């Protein structure tokens, strides 16, 4: 009896061992991967003084995109499936550190492409290195206008730019001027005449402030600019100065990122400077993270903010899925830079597949130029590049290798603790959700 039982047990064990490899293939979604992986470097800030929260969100999105692509059998080159391998590097928000990480990406990790970058200073410092080494790169968050053709030393301002050193760097985040244009047009339409801009002393804040300053002045508004250091906690002395000015400002525009903007906006509200009936509060896009925003800016009701990316009510299926996954992980709404980072990996993967090579940077970059993909933020394409080198008169040089359609809207909270999914889209008119271009504090749309 015992012998028979032992025999049956052995048979079961053998059967299990035989089935095991089959079950592993099943677990991989029926994909067989070639040994070589496609390495994509993700350059994000994961330590202070960088925007760590932003970096973690971007890192999560980059890895999520790789997982999603790998679940769909990765990138197919010459009939073989290649899995994507993500290598994350911590820029710390510092240009020097960013350069060191890119050097490591190129020399040690031998990445096939790069994405990420939150801080403009890091983008500006690393783009020439990436370009010179022929590494196809899709930046997903730096806004500085010069993070493209403008910022390349060799660029002389006249297309075509073949061999001018602007071949491999692309951007799917908006340039500061694209965002500034929307914000200023909205405020000018509202009739503001006395503007206070509070800008961070960085490669993002200063050019963005200069751009908006010029636009406001051109529209006849009086502008006062105040520069602050990123990481400052106490803004009360400088806010008291605004409060003491002879004329109450019509708007206080915050060009400060991350948690610093939360501190600034909350102190502004606590002192009764803005938002008030007389003064509009326009805070940074991080306000879109409503969970964080309300925890840190409990008095920030009626603040408006610019939002990059498709408005929540128009989210595609991909965006909804991504948002759900993000919410599960971070209990907040997916920010635009996470969506852009997610999409950037897909753009790179698609280009590598079409180029049919992981090592031919020029072929991959040429393929990126002809991208035509519908992803979480909408349809991606690059209007100007070596495939279409003639920029029409008046088109800014940053449009070279720039995704031209990031949706920039103005949104506004009108209830304490409101989710950003329910916040009002107030500008441009075509996207308005509550039929108004501004909700005066104390009222409801």
């Amino acid at each position, binding site marked *: 009896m015992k012998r028979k039982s032992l025999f049956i047990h052995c048979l079961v064990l053998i059967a299990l061992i035989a089935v095991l490899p089959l079950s592993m293939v099943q677990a991989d979604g029926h994909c067989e991967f070639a040994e070589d992986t496609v390495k994509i470097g993700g350059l994000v800030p994961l330590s*202070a*003084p960088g925007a*760590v*929260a932003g*970096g*973690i969100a971007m890192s999560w999105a980059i890895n999520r995109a790789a997982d999603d692509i790998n679940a769909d059998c990765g990138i197919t080159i010459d009939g073989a499936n290649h899995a994507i391998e993500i290598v994350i590097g911590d820029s710390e928000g510092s240009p020097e550190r960013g350069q060191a990480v890119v050097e490591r990406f190129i020399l040690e990790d031998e990445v096939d492409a790069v994405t990420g970058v939150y801080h403009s200073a890091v983008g500006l410092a690393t783009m020439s290195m990436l370009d010179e080494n022929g590494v196809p790169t899709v930046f997903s968050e730096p806004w500085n206008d010069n993070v493209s053709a403008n910022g390349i030393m060799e660029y002389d301002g006249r297309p075509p730019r073949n061999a001018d050193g602007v071949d491999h760097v692309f951007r799917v985040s908006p340039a500061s001027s694209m965002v500034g244009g929307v914000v200023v047009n909205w405020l000018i339409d509202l009739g503001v005449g006395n503007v206070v801009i509070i800008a961070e*002393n960085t490669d993002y804040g200063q050019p963005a402030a200069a751009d908006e300053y010029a636009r406001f002045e051109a529209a006849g508004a009086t502008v*006062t*600019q*105040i*520069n*602050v*250091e990123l*990481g*400052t*906690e*106490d*803004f*009360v*002395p*400088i806010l*008291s*100065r605004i*409060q*003491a*000015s002879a004329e109450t400002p019509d708007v206080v525009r915050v060009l400060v990122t991350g*948690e610093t903007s*939360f*501190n600034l906006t*909350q*102190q502004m509200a*606590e*002192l*009764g400077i803005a938002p008030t009936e007389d003064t509009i509060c326009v805070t940074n896009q991080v306000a879109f993270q409503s969970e*964080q925003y309300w*925890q*840190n800016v*409990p*008095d920030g009701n009626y603040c408006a903010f610019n939002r990059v990316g498709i408005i929540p009510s128009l989210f595609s299926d991909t965006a909804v899925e991504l948002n759900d996954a993000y919410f599960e992980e*971070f209990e907040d709404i997916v920010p635009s830079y996470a969506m852009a980072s997610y999409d950037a990996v897909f753009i790179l993967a698609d280009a590598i597949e079409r180029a049919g090579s992981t090592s031919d940077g020029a072929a991959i970059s040429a393929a990126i130029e002809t991208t035509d993909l519908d992803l979480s933020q909408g349809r991606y394409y690059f209007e100007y590049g070596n495939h279409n080198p003639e920029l029409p008169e008046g088109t800014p040089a940053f449009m070279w290798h720039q995704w031209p359609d990031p949706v920039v809207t103005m949104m506004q909270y009108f209830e304490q603790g409101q989710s950003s999914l329910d916040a009002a889209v107030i500008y441009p008119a075509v996207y308005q959700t509550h039929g108004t271009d501004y909700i005066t504090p104390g009222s409801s749309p």
Partner: protein
Amino acid sequence: MNESFATWLLLAGPLWAAIGLYFLPRMAPKRKRDSAVSEHDLQAAGVVGGFALGPVGIGLFYLAPNLIRRFTLAAGITIAVFIAAQALVRVSDPNLPSALWLILAGPLWAGIASYFIPRRYRDAEAIDTNALTAAALGGFAIGPLIFGLTWKHTPRISREWIIVLGSLGAWQIYTLFAIHNATNPCVAAPFHLTYLTQQTANGVVIGSIYSLMAVGLTLIYSVQGVVSFAHGQLYMVGGYFSFYFLLHAGNILSELTGAEVSVNPIWGIPVAAVIVFIMGAVFERIFLKPMHEGLIERVSEYAILITFGFGFFLEYTTLAIAGPFPQRTNRFIEIRRFTLPRTQITDDFFFGPIHIIGDRAFAMVVGIVLIFALLYFLQRSWTGRALRATSQDRQAAAVTGINPTNMNTLSFALGSMLAAMSGAALIPIFNWVPWVGAEMVGRSYVIVVLGGLGSVPGALAGGVIVGIVEALGAGCHPDPSRGAAYKEAFALVIFALVLLLKPTGLFGREHN
């Protein structure tokens, strides 16, 4: 006086002063001068005589060196200042009011006085404790008159004198400011008094909270002689302990009562205090005690590295556990801001309104109460006296039955606890992230050195001074676009000046 003559005077003055400084002490015949005319007197005479009257001045003192001991020096100084200032005024701006000459000459006189007066004190074998500070401030504030006050006699310049002279100097800066930046809110009537008071109130409120953190740092230093580089992270974890305690206590109470309950952040302060006190005590026993027992060779380096390491450990552990997203607790009080209403004193003179954010005012009160409680503990309790005794002389304290090892542990635990309490007091005010301590700890070092390393009252005063200087600096800077960006630099300027003029700090002991 035409411009070219003024320029010539400006150029010639320093040249002759340099010649006088070099040659007069070497050339003045010893037989003609009495023994009271020292080498420094001759140097001073060379500079002043040369600057004021060129070769005539040098010749005068060469022929009659004893004149230096009389009023001649003061007269020469006055002439020199007058000529130099007039020349400067004319060259820089012919329309500038001549009354500004003293203000323009302030830094020059501060430099001259700080060079000569302390030497004069030492030559006279007088106490020169505050001589440098008094000379610099006095030179800046009242120009050559400081020589008249201090040259003939060598009085001991008291702290009160320094305050008076410093105030005079500040008044001069204010006057200069008022003339050159008439639209600045700090000087533009009729709002300036309200505005200055508002900024001073901002500074006092935040400065009191700075003080609480700095007091902990200075306490550790005074007893152990160790500068804790983990202080910022202890401040940070204090905030997080408060945050998580409030979160969980709120959840538990909500479950028990069936209604949403939020716990006031004031309760987070004692919780953070107890946890970090224990944490500090354990760290001290394990890592710092061997240092005091002679088991470590390079004690100073070890103390820096081990506290640095502790700080890193705390920061990155918190990052791993709490994540990078900013946190904030509920308010202490449900009053967004206090507003002291406008008070009309005369038709043209009014005051207010002054706004103070409610939670900040509350945190200030918490900070002040805790500092005074600590002072009471240090002054009145046996343990507090034992701590002070250990900080003054460890061996003598041991002879009287005090256990210095226990005092070391207590001081580190107490200091850490104070940092944690200030963190717990500030988490309703600022967004809290794992690296929030970096900015605060840098400021704390400035405060403790400014107040005097090891001095608790010094840390209190230093914190308030730093708070006020930062607020006034950011609020009064002529260029509003830069004022906020330079906020921390203003405190560093004061810090540098204090280090230069009084290296022991405002309340520091001469010898530790």
